[in-house]
């Protein structure tokens, strides 16, 4: 039984996006991930953190909390912000949908999270914040005992 967790709190600055995804990947790498799995996880985390920076806080100050939980072969990543919240989650998850077309946002954030992780859940409340939970089952190769 493998069990571990970490918690990271960052300011919603675009500089912190790369720090957040690299930190999550470094922590998760103890699960014997393939290069593709590492890359998928980094991309999904980048999308969720960018959403909090761009939409949740819109360049205002605040906190983004990132929790990573390892439980056996399941990796769970929670990205929580205490920003403006999402008015219509169903619409926000639609491919190419964006509330800021002039900002050159592609509207692909949630679509990429859904494609690269096994499960994506979003809970949001206006002016309270947004909680995104990403889950991925890691296909563990058995360690071969060399005697």
């Amino acid at each position, binding site marked *: 039984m493998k069990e571990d967790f970490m918690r990271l709190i960052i300011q919603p600055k*675009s*500089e912190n*996006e*790369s720090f957040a995804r690299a930190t999550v990947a470094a922590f998760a790498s103890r699960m014997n991930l393939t290069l*593709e799995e590492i*890359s998928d996880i*980094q*991309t999904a985390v*980048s*999308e969720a953190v*960018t959403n909090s*920076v*761009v939409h949740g806080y819109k360049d205002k100050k605040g906190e983004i909390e990132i929790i990573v939980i390892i439980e056996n072969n399941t990796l769970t990543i929670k990205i929580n912000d205490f920003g403006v919240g999402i008015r219509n989650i169903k619409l926000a998850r639609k*491919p*190419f949908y964006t509330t800021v077309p002039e900002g*050159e*946002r*592609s*509207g*692909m*954030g949630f*679509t*990429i999270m859904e*494609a690269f992780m096994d499960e994506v859940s979003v809970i949001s409340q206006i002016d309270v914040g947004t909680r995104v939970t990403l889950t991925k089952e890691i296909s563990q190769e058995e360690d071969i005992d060399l005697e």
Partner: protein
Amino acid sequence: MEVKYKIHNENLIVYLKNEIDHHMSEKLRTSIDSLIDNADVISLVIDFKSVNFVDSSGIGLILGRYKKMRSIGGKIKIINTTKQIKKILHMASIETIMTVN
């Protein structure tokens, strides 16, 4: 932000590097657009050879430059992408509107 580029026969080649996320895209957008505006180019080639990470902000950057090139009657092409970058670009079907190599 300084970006490595080459202009040859009205073709602008831009060499991107490292990670193309929201933070970098915002900076690159202005740099690439001023290169397009200041040189008389009819085609833009974006080279991903030294890029090791792209997320949806990179898609936004490419689509934005696609629109800009189209507005001046020019073309855009993406070269030297890895399997992982292709996977991201494919999510937005980028390869259906421009050449991706």
